């Protein structure tokens, strides 16, 4: 670190935790708005900066890195997903990128379970019918959903979040946990989850959960082919990234009763256009990407991003660096 204080550009109004870590040691320039920084402004402001503190709404590609200049030393994204960052470009330029795993795991797992229950038990449909006057007297056959008791749950990507979700689902009487991914995980033994290939997971699961990171290889993983292999009573829940899902194929699968229902906390784009067909379906529950939306998680994400950046600027290891 040279004599002058390093310059950090922060792309949004963020919880103060991260700024409090950086402020004593850095010169901070910030887009102090609740709305994302316009791209032209980002390109203008990043020029000459030593570090970038960004969010998942900021696309960090070659053009932005070029605009920054060779003195850009590191990036910290206030998210665990990094599909918005061109990692190839960053590696080529020797720019390490910090991210925020673990600190948002509990909040995201919590929301995933809430979304799963609301979708599988048709609670949104039901609460809406209450508000719209469709609530009659108790009827044994009205508004029946699907229970977890005795079910098979398939977790696509048994990472930190996938494991945290599975732990929370276990006491609901889940009979079998299956998971798919690149390789088996030791942690799976904690809940007795079985490693299977993707197709086996799809054809055997009553609940299919998208918990894996989005990569170039798994874009559109959940497509017509995948939905056709799922059970007709299956509930599909995605809280990872919208890009995992072919949304046109999902719409068809729901409308044709190939699967029972879907719960999505993430879509592409975000938000969905107002005329998106998925928004018309009673058996598709869509949330506005609130997986990590607790004050505790967001504060911790900001703090970790600040620490990631400051550590590297001081010549230390980043606490959480993307490999």
């Amino acid at each position: 670190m040279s004599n002058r204080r390093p310059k950090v550009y922060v792309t949004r109004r963020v919880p103060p935790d991260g700024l409090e870590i950086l402020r004593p040691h850095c010169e901070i320039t910030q887009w102090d708005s609740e709305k994302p920084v316009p791209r032209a402004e980002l390109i203008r402001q990043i020029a000459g900066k030593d570090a970038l503190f960004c969010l998942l709404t900021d696309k960090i590609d070659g053009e932005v890195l070029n605009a920054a200049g060779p003195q850009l030393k590191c990036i910290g994204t206030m998210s665990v997903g990094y599909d918005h960052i061109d990692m190839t470009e960053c590696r080529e330029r020797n720019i390490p990128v910090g991210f925020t795993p673990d600190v948002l795991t509990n909040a995201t797992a919590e929301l995933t379970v809430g979304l799963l229950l609301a979708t599988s038990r048709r609670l949104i449909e039901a609460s809406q019918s209450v508000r719209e006057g469709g609530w009659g007297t108790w009827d044994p056959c009205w508004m029946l959903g699907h229970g977890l008791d005795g079910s098979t749950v398939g977790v696509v990507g048994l990472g930190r979040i996938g494991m945290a979700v599975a732990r929370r689902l276990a006491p609901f009487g889940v009979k079998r946990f299956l998971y798919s991914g690149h390789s088996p995980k030791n942690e799976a033994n904690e809940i007795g989850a079985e490693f299977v290939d993707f197709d086996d997971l799809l054809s055997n699961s009553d609940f299919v959960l998208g918990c894996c990171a989005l990569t170039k290889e798994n874009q559109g993983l959940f497509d017509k082919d995948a939905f056709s292999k799922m059970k007709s009573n299956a509930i599909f829940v995605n809280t990872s990234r919208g890009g995992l899902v072919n949304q046109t194929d999902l719409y068809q699968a729901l409308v044709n009763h190939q699967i029972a229902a879907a719960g999505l906390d993430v879509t592409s784009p975000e938000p969905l256009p107002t005329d998106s067909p998925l928004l018309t379906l009673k058996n598709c529950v869509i949330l506005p990407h609130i997986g990590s939306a607790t004050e505790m998680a967001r504060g911790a994400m900001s703090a970790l991003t600040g620490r990631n950046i400051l550590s590297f600027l001081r010549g230390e290891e980043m606490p959480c660096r993307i490999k």
Partner: protein
Amino acid sequence: MRVLSLGSYRVVEIVTMPENRVYITRQVGNEAIALLKQKYKVEIWDSEEPIPKETLLTAVGGISALFCTVSDIIDAGILEAAGPQLKVVATMSAGWDNVDVAECRRRGIEVCKTPDIAADAAADIAVALILMTSRNIVQGIDAIRQNLFHCWKPFWLCGSGLINKTIGILGFGRVGFGIARRIKPFGVERILYNDLEEIEYAENCAQYVSLDTLFSSSDILCICCGVNSLTKGMVNSKLLQRMKRTSILINTSRGVVVNHDDLAEALSDGTIAAAGLDVTDPEPLPVGHPLLTQPKCVILPHMGTNTAETRVAMSVNTAKNILAVLN
């Protein structure tokens, strides 16, 4: 049919037993009905709507067993109309507050319900309500509908969550216990409960506290008690005012336990932060009821047991209850 031996003659006496008649107050599912039809004469109110009282009064005359649901009030009038040969009232529900149990017992009529099966599904719904209220799920859905979701924002729709929170359970029965088991892996700091007395099976998962401590210490308070003279209207403004302003009230027991006017006021003036109700009094709530338009109140139309598997199990269990009594 009886076979008698009279000396070297065998006499066959055919005795016609009056057939046991069972009346079912709703279309409850084929498996349960088939079980009963095997042995008894079965009549059903085959409609999606509950049976009107006058119709039920006429229909029950001479029956041995009554198979009813939570929407049927089985009082002395019904029991009288049925006649002295009525042996059992079996309700397809976790509770039997819809049945005058005391009057049944006075008349030597068995009363049966289905608490165990319903408990798991009801605990699921309770946790669903906890998550829906503490993570602003309904607000999230509404925001999309109202075009208020522009992009991911760090401060938008943040909920309180469950990490390090204190969960309180009023009534540590099957549902209360089920909630405690399910909520443990969510990282809650502690689980408190209050009941008529300390409960043995609560030992490893929840801590017994006084009623006042339960209400004043809980971040999320779940009402899971049965209905009786003690609990009717128990959750009123006095108890609500003991709660934290950031707290959430969840009710999956019966609507009558919570004073609805007091709850509406407590939500309106910020005495508590939110409520999630799977049960109300009455059900449904009349159009225009203040709780229906209170944005901090999530109301579900009594979904406690709404899976096909649970309903089938409840109806089959009710049929088996009847079989057990009549045989």
